[in-house]
């Protein structure tokens, strides 16, 4: 058992805060490895120690392996927590940590190479007979063979140019009788666009749901799954709203998918927290990939299971976290997470940067706010636009949706625009409420972004009145007593 004293954090924003807090609860010191653009952030203020590892550009700081390792060693850290994004799934970084006597908080570099690399992951899954998206990537490109493969895969099937991309040479087969025409057309297009007529076949999933399983390997290498999350609400493959558990799984599906998740994780000798992603359509599920790290949406799993995944990671890294066979976990209630992005929902999600004014989160039972920035901090254009996560838990899904809508309506961020109005519209959408949403949800219903509910001149008129009222405090000092906690609320206590 390794006794650790100090953990380096190779990340920023809300996840850095999340890790600092977990460390503090375990009596561990923290060293924040940050870029010089991030000195106005909550993590910078909360960490025990801070070391600047480079300028704002990620390639020179958060993605710079040498700088991170050097700073962690200089700070006397025992371990490095990579958070998510940046170097968290970089096998070379994990390996450099291992070589330099730093414990990488996550799976081993071998595991990251085996499960994180798409080619090696696919061959591992194939060998183990686990379900991948059915397809054909063979060398036999004769028409009879391709037609045979189409039938074996099952319609609809998409034909893709092997050398292609960007939709060219891509044809959708929805009927067997048109298969030949579509294949030949794809081959011609592939040849003229890419100089090769070779095509791939893949089952076309037009209404798939994104389901993932949280996996965790303890200090002894025993792997369990901690149930599922659904993240079907995505925009350009970026998740926006996640929930646990999925409203789409039957008991049987959950059991089967959980088994597959544990099998692949065990094959990869998984230790620490990770996620196995699936696509689900018509009660058939397909392995997509393994994320060999803590996931952005890990809090929804924590909420339904009453666990602390980051603490579990820290304890596992020290060799003292072991699942006991008696420890049976059953998810309770429903949890939803919304990612708050600094962007303008009325301008197709255009990024919004600037100095933050008031940032106010409406605390309440089972409302959780993970945020990295406060009033006075600056949201810079250098990094991901996610500035906070709002997580709620309630007895069932519909109550959790109501709680989330109310919580978001009462959340205030001044200084930058946020996607909060967009999130509210999505949560309130009939298809989201029904739980039937697929990964096509956003492009089907929200491709145009949001239309403003109020005219510009109306907003300007309000702004004018408010600005005037703010400049003349006497005008509202008396009336503002209504919202002052001192005068009204203490009476009769």
């Amino acid at each position: 058992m390794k006794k650790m004293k100090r953990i380096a954090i190779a990340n920023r924003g809300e996840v850095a805060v999340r890790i600092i807090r977990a460390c503090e609860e375990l009596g561990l010191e923290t060293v924040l490895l940050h870029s010089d653009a991030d000195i106005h952030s909550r993590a910078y203020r909360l960490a025990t120690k801070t070391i600047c590892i480079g300028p704002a550009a990620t390639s020179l700081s958060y993605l710079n392996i040498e700088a991170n390792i050097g700073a962690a060693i200089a700070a006397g850290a025992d371990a490095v927590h990579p958070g998510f994004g940046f170097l968290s799934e970089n096998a070379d970084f994990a390996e450099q940590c291992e070589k330099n006597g730093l414990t990488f908080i996550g799976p081993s570099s071998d595991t990251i190479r085996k499960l994180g690399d798409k080619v090696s992951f696919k061959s591992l899954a194939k060998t183990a007979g686990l379900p991948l998206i059915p397809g054909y990537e063979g060398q036999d490109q004769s028409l009879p063979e391709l037609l045979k493969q189409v039938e074996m895969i099952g319609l609809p099937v998409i034909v893709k140019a092997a050398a292609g991309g960007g939709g060219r040479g891509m044809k959708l087969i929805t009927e067997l009788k048109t298969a030949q025409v579509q294949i030949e057309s794809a081959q011609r297009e592939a040849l003229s666009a890419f100089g090769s007529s070779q095509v791939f076949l893949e089952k076309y999933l037009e209404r798939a749901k994104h389901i993932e399983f949280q996996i965790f390997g303890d200090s002894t290498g025993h792997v369990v799954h901690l149930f599922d999350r659904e993240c079907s609400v995505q925009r350009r493959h970026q998740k926006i709203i996640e929930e646990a558990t999925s409203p789409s799984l039957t008991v049987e599906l959950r059991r089967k998918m959980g088994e597959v998740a544990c099998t692949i994780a065990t094959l990869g000798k998984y230790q620490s927290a990770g996620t196995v992603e699936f696509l689900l359509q018509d009660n058939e599920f397909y392995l997509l990939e393994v994320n060999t790290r803590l996931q952005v949406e890990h809090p929804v799993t924590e909420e339904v299971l009453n666990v602390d995944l980051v603490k579990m990671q820290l304890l596992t890294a020290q060799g003292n976290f072991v699942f006991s066979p008696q420890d049976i976990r059953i998810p309770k209630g429903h949890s939803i997470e919304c990612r708050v992005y600094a962007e303008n929902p009325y301008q197709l999600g255009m990024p919004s940067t600037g100095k933050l004014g008031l940032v106010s989160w409406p605390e309440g039972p089972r409302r959780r706010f993970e945020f990295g920035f406060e009033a006075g901090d600056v949201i810079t254009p250098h990094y991901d636009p996610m500035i906070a996560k709002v997580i709620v838990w309630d007895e069932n899904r519909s109550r959790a949706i109501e709680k989330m809508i109310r919580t978001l309506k009462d959340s205030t961020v001044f200084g930058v625009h946020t996607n909060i109005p967009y999130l509210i519209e999505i949560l309130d959408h009939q298809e989201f409420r029904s739980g039937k949403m697929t990964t096509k949800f956003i492009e089907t219903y929200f491709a145009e972004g949001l239309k403003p509910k109020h005219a510009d001149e109306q907003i300007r008129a309000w702004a004018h009145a408010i600005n005037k009222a703010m400049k003349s405090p006497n005008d509202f000092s008396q009336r503002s007593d209504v919202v002052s906690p001192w005068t009204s609320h203490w009476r009769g206590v």
Partner: protein
Amino acid sequence: MNKTFKLKLDGIEKAVTAEVVDKKIWFKLYDQVFSCDLIELVDAGFKKAKTISKSPDRILAPMPGKVTKVFVSENQTVQKGDALLVMEAMKMEYTLKADISATVEKIFSKVSDQVTLGFLLVQLKEHK
């Protein structure tokens, strides 16, 4: 610093939280955050509203809003009670009329201009 106070808007008293951040006013109303360029408010009229005093030969915007119609042109003669232009705000139309008989000396706004309270719209020259 942000402030929370009650304000009568659209005829109803509402709780408003507001703050000026980097030359913009941000406020929360009807469960939603809005922002508005302060420079637009100040430069286009708010400051001027204080310096320009009211007088019958100066037609000032009685409210922030949009100019939707201009009935007159420069050097035109108008009689007391003639409509000069129409403004629109909060879905309400407001017709600005001449209080005096005069000649239109200068017009400072055109259709679809957004103006703030007190913005000088038309300068008249009174007929003695």
